[in-house]
């Protein structure tokens, strides 16, 4: 068996994680539970979202979800969904966070979304940007005007895109004033004294 390529992204990632773990162990943790926590940890960099390490979606599904997420949260003067790693986040979150029925609803909805695009003329990804955006908007509006509990595919995608984006470094720090250690609480401050909305979550 060949030894693993020391410069492969996977090895580098693992090394980075171990380094991080060692740092934590040195100053902080030394318990099985904390180790389990680390092992269970899926940092954004680990799930780069390349087809090789997809966990839930196939490559075609990922491409579709990535396109939808980017239409909802496009790159403007701040990063878009893709820059923030949202597609890979959605893939891993669908795999890890959702129970079977929700996963199945997502998969079925994804297939229906594409089937509807084809039925109305063209595969979704073959459409131009304006037509894609119109299709996504139409899908959102239809979902919102009907009973949407449990959430259908398009609203699951949206919720995950927002969650992934606003737990990413670029999503938070480029759109909001993120202060890790605020040091004080001021209960009533004029917005005129704030540059950006403050990250409160």
């Amino acid at each position, binding site marked *: 068996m060949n030894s693993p390529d020391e410069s492969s992204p996977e090895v580098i990632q693992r090394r980075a994680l171990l380094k991080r773990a060692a740092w934590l162990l040195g100053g902080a943790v030394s318990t099985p539970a904390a180790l389990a926590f680390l092992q269970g940890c899926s940092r954004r960099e680990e799930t780069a979202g390349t087809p090789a390490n997809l966990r839930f979606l196939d490559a075609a599904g990922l491409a579709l979800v990535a396109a939808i997420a980017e239409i909802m949260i496009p790159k403007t003067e701040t990063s878009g969904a893709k820059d923030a790693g949202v597609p890979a986040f959605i893939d891993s*979150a669908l795999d*890890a966070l959702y129970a079977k029925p929700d996963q199945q609803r997502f998969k079925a909805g994804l297939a229906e979304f594409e089937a509807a695009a084809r039925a109305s003329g063209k595969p979704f990804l073959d459409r131009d940007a304006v037509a894609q955006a119109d299709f996504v908007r139409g899908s959102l509006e239809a979902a919102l005007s009907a009973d949407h509990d449990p959430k259908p595919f398009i609203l699951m995608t949206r919720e995950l895109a927002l969650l992934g984006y606003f737990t990413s470094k670029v999503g938070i720090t480029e*759109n909001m004033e993120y202060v890790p250690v605020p040091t004080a609480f001021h209960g009533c401050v004029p917005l005129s004294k704030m540059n*950006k909305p403050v990250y409160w979550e």
Partner: protein
Amino acid sequence: MDTNSFDAIVVGTGMSGGWAAKELTEKGLKTLVLDRGRMVRHGEYPTATKDPWDLPYGNRITQETRRRKPIWSRTNYPTPANEHWFVEDAENPYVEEQPFDWLRGWHVGGRSLMWARQSYRFGPLDFGANAKEGVAIPWPVSYEEIAPWYDYAETFAGISGSVEGLPQLPDGKFLPPMDLNCVEIDFQKRLAEKLDRKLIIGRCANLTAPLTHKESPQRGTCQYRNMCIRGCPFGGYFSSVSATLPSAERTGNMTLLPDKIVYELIYDNDKGKATGVRVLDAHTGAQTDYFAKVIFMCASAIGSAFIMMNSVSTRFPNGFGNDSGELGHNIMDHNKPGGSNASVEGYLDVAYTGRRANGFYIPRYRNVGKDKRDYLRGFGYQGRASRAGVGRFNDSALMGAELKKAFTEPGPWNIGMTAFAEILPYHENHARLDRSKKDKYGLPMLVLNAVVRDNERRMEVDMRNDAAEMLEAAGYKDIRVSSDSYNVGNSIHEMGTARMGADPKKSVLNKYNQVHACKNVFVTDGSFMVSSGCQNPSLTYMAFTARAANHAVEELKKGNL
């Protein structure tokens, strides 16, 4: 003295155990402190400085975690950021004859690491209620007796709050109060004008200013990160790990052993005393006995009751100190069946900075003064007003550049509050052991059976309606009444399993938390509570533990133990 013998043993290191360890060691007792869980030292908080992007899955718990921790997962508490503080439920089962959310923190520091830090005194109304209404048994301690110990506990721990002069919620030794935000101030004014009800900032164990003493140099002030539940590297809030255990450590009198499961008290028939505790090593299962003159049980209301029920002898065939038949009974918690929330118009040009680890509090007003209801006791509300975050875009069709522009505007104001209500002590609400089943350590299976009953159900009507009525009186819109399903234990305030009382036939402990029938054993966690009040109870455990430790040392000196 052999290596397994000490002056004192403290079982548990949570809120009460930390205090027992500090007080006993500071008074010169060589003290063995045992915890069934792993070691945690101040600063050993693995997620405390993680940014949102460093936490897995957007800080949502996985299906795999849900399988491992089914009890914890069904509550509102779980996130990966605090997962390491909650016990592996599936590996450590108990029998729920009625649904019971027993949320366990098995590590040094216990649940003092994850507590909500709300710190309220019980007042004369609470200590007098059982006697006045003929419920259960009277408290053997008056507010006046415990008040100096509240002073003492507050001063050491550092409790922030406002002085209000409310008879039902006595003031304490406070650090400066945190700010209410603009909308909470608006609500406060309207409640006072329209309904003559009081809203105050929560009283919490977060340092809004330096402590007034020099005993905790490792603690700094609150940094307003609102991540307390992860453990605070700044020592901004009180926990055993940040405050009491470091004090105990500095005396040189503490031997702290983690991973030691105390499963039995050793009773010596000839001496008429407990001589020590039996312990299993959590990893190896090795059994060891430790001995001491005085033993403090601080393993939580259910944990201490478990050990005592499992300690049978010819003298105590029904469990340690259980001549009354009350051991394991009278489990209380705080009923939390919902509240109300609303949208607030206006105030769009103001917000707040910093993340306040606290909310507002509406102290009990039902059955206070001239108010008379068709139920006993009452409830308080805990809540907050805030500007909506990005979650408001989940169910919206806004997208593209328009959506991104909307991100840069803070959302509208919302306000919400949840009621916490007193649960009466019922003998029927109980814990017991099923010796026909064993846990993975070979110890008997715990059975829990507790429900809310008629008085609590009647109170729930007011709890929901009053919340909506207050929000309506304030002029807020889209008022929604929330009805949450509540299992006993969900407020993580379980108490009452070894109540104190003047009559040994009706109680397990005397007024100093001593087992009536075995005076060198003290039980100072929530077990001793005779009624639950509607206030968060930790501060009361601190005060009673400090008082009990003082009494223990005085009695030792007199040769009475």
